[in-house]
Structure formats: C-alpha cells, structure tokens
C-alpha cells in the first residue's frame, strides 16, 4: 500500500511538469492605423482576446473576435466592421506561433524574459507569417505577455480607399497585452 501512495505522488509530480499551460480570456489587443497626417486617431481596443500558451514547448496561440474591437467613435467602429475587416464574413483573427528557444528559459521561475515569437497570423481570411519581439514577465505563477508589431493591411487584402488615405495608414500597429493564468484540469 505504501508503494501505491509513493507511485501516485510520483505520477502527480511528473504530470505537473508535463507542458504546464497558461491562458487568458480577456487579453487586450490594441489596433492603431492612424496615419501621420490624420486629425483623428484611428484606433480600437479589444479586451476579450483569448490566448493559450504551453510553457514547455513554447507554443502560443491567440484568437480574437473582430466585432469586439471598440472605437471611440461609433461610425469608425461601423466602418471597421463593415468596410475593412468584414467581420461578418471573417469573424475571427488568429495567431498560431511559437516562442523561439523556449527550452532555454524556465518559466517556473519569476523574472522578466525577452523572447522572440514567430508564427502565422490570420486576419480577414488571409494568413501571413510574422515575427516579433515580446516580453514575458513571470510573477507568482502568472505570466504577463506583451508584444508589439506592425502589419501591412494590403497583405491581408484590406484596401484603403483614396478618399481616406490621409487618415488611415497602410500599416497597422498591433499591441498585445495578456495576463496569463495557469490552466487547470488539463
């Protein structure tokens, strides 16, 4: 019987080490396509992005509903959904990638880690490879993940009509900020 207890403990310990995963359902994604000559800010924010990260393998994935982007001006939000990202046709944007050299960092220890993330981003039904630098801050068993990168809107077949070209930039800055918590009952 003693053996059994020992074995159970051992199994639990090892399984805890198996690809501990972290997640969030309210990650923040900022989108900014303000052109340098624009009198108004063309920016939106989404506070309900989902993200799951596998600390062991470094795999990281994001999903965000395009309709969840909020703009200061209602008309901008309407145009974003109706004319640019066509959120009825393409409701979701995704990122599937990997933290480079994930095995070199130990995310079970508190600290700040600069990482490179590479993967495929899908917006407006178009997929492109992106690579960006990010920051992982581990504290009390949680991970704060931040990254900033730019995408060319034409890469995703989002066209900017000439009439608004002085307001809407051809590239959009995307800032991601997530506070990831350990995923239980995996």
């Amino acid at each position, binding site marked *: 019987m003693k053996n*059994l207890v020992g*074995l*159970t403990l051992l*199994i639990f310990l*090892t*399984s805890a080490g*198996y*690809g501990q*995963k972290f*997640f969030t*359902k309210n990650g923040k994604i900022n989108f900014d396509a303000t052109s340098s000559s624009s009198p108004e800010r063309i920016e939106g*924010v989404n*506070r309900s992005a*989902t993200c*799951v*990260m*596998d600390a062991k393998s470094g*795999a*990281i*994935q994001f*999903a965000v509903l395009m*309709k969840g982007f*909020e*703009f*200061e*001006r*209602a*008309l901008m*939000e*309407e*145009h974003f*959904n*109706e*004319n640019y990202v*066509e959120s*009825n*046709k393409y409701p979701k944007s*995704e990122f599937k990638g990997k933290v480079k050299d994930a095995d070199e960092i130990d995310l079970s220890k508190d600290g700040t880690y600069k990482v490179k993330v590479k993967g495929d981003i899908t917006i407006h039904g178009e997929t492109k490879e992106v690579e960006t630098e990010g920051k992982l801050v581990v504290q009390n068993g949680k991970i704060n993940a931040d990254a900033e990168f730019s995408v060319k809107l034409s890469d995703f077949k989002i066209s900017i*009509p000439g*009439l*608004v070209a002085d*307001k809407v930039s051809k590239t959009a800055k995307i800032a991601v900020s997530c506070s990831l918590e350990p*995923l239980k009952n*995996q």
Partner: protein
Amino acid sequence: MKKLFRRIIISVMVLLPSFQLMAQDPDLLKLIEGDEKPEKIRIKYAFKSPRVINSHSMEFLNPGTMDFRILHRFGQINQGYKNFFGLDQASMRMGFDFGILHNLMAGIGRSTYKKELDGFIKYAPIRQSTGPWSSPVTLALVAGMTMDGTDWSDPERQNFFTSRLAYYFQAIIGRKFSESFTLQVAPTMVHKNLAVLEKDPNNIYALGIGGRIKLSKRIAFTWDYSHVFIGMPDSGYYHPLSVGFDIETGGHVFQLHFSNSTGMNERAFITETTANWGKGDIRFGFNLSRVFQIKKKKSGEPKW
C-alpha cells in the same frame, strides 16, 4: 481479488499521464473553448442610415451621435432643358437626428415645402438578434408630428393653431436577411387635424415597403414605396415610390434617388404626392447624412 484490484489501480495510474500526453492537441485554443454561454448579439447595420430614402428604416443611430441631414428634391425631370431637367428648382429639408439609446432616437427637421416643421421619436422594443432569446426581426415604433408654417388659406374664417398640426404613427417590422439583403414593412397612419376638402378623410392609412440590396461594401441599391390603402383622394394623388443608391464615403452617406414625391416628412410624402411615375413625373433628389459623435462612446457597451 485484492491483488487484482490493486493491479488495476496501478495500471490506471501509470496509464493516465500518458493519456494526458497524447491529448496534447496542437490546437491549444480548443482547451479553453466550449464553456462560454452563447450570447445574445444584436444584428447591426441593416441599413446605412436610419432612413431608407424618405421613410424611417429599422436601423438606429448609435447612442451619443447626431445625424445632420440635408435633403434636396429637385423639379420634374420631364420639364426638360428649360428647367435643366428639374435642377433649377429645389425643395429642401434640414434635419437633426439624435441617437439616445441603441433603440431610441429622436429628431427634428424643417422643410421648405409648406414651411413645415416636423419632429419624431423612434423606439424599438424588439431588435433583430442572434443567440438565446433572440428575435428574427426588429420592431420599431415611430410617432411624429408636423406643423404647417404657411399662411392660412382662408384668413376670414376662425382658424385654430391645432389645424396646422398633423401626426403620424408607424410600426416598422424589418429583417436583415443577409449581409446584402434587408427588407422592411411599415404600416403607417397619418392623422391630419385639418383636411383640405370636406370629403377628404382626416385619417390616412398606408403600408410602406422598403429595402436594400448591397452592391458593394460602400454602395447599395434601395427602394422605398408606400401604398396608401385608405384615405387616398380620388384623383391627382399617387403612391410615393423612390428608388436610389446609398453611397458611403467615409464620413458621409449620400442617398441619391429618383422619386415622384416632393415631401420629405411622412405627412407630406404619404398624403401629398401629386406626381405620377407612369407619366414620367420623376424628380431627382439626394439626402446627405453626416454623423457626428457628440458624446464619447463608453467602452464596454453591452452587446445587447
């Protein structure tokens, strides 16, 4: 027996973690899917504007916005070059509409035709949505009032201020069937406090049918017809029909159209359309709509 039992437990314990290992789906997001409750989400953008052409549409202004509308109706095209196909004459209405809640708006306007002032309030108890407790259609109710600003036709007799007033009540039942097709019907009643002739009725009943077919992301084909069932004078008056295009250019929505009506409020276009499409008495007209954000949008506005 005890031994066998123990063996089973041990083998299960050993096997469990390996199952876990196998379950490492490459799609990590699936791990956190599925436990959300389906949400009720409003169907938005059934029309580009809260008006089809003349009539109110099932769409509402966003809360905190003001729609400044300038409407023009020109003369009849069949007047030819002498009147530059009607463009020499213009009748206009200027309006200010305000979005108060996602399902409540109000507005005022002033038309050159009969120097008429009009105001309305529009409320939707039911809006088209998806998810639990959703509705396949939007039901919107409009109540409006118009005030004739011209001189009394007969100053000799005793005239009352109330004779200048008319009211209209409308129920709009509409559905955005798809991204490109929206249709609505609108039973309408117009009450005039003073009818021109003794035999003319004070109450006029009509059914409006309006719709939109989206041709591209920024251009749509629209039509707006009202069939007057009860209260149409015997001769000289026709059912108003307008067809046109909505063109959206960033900040503005242009509604360019052809119509047989001059009036730009419900009383005027439903009860006083005197031109006949059949004879080619068509006018060109446009509505220009510019939406201003007058109150900053609150973040975290409920989806419902």
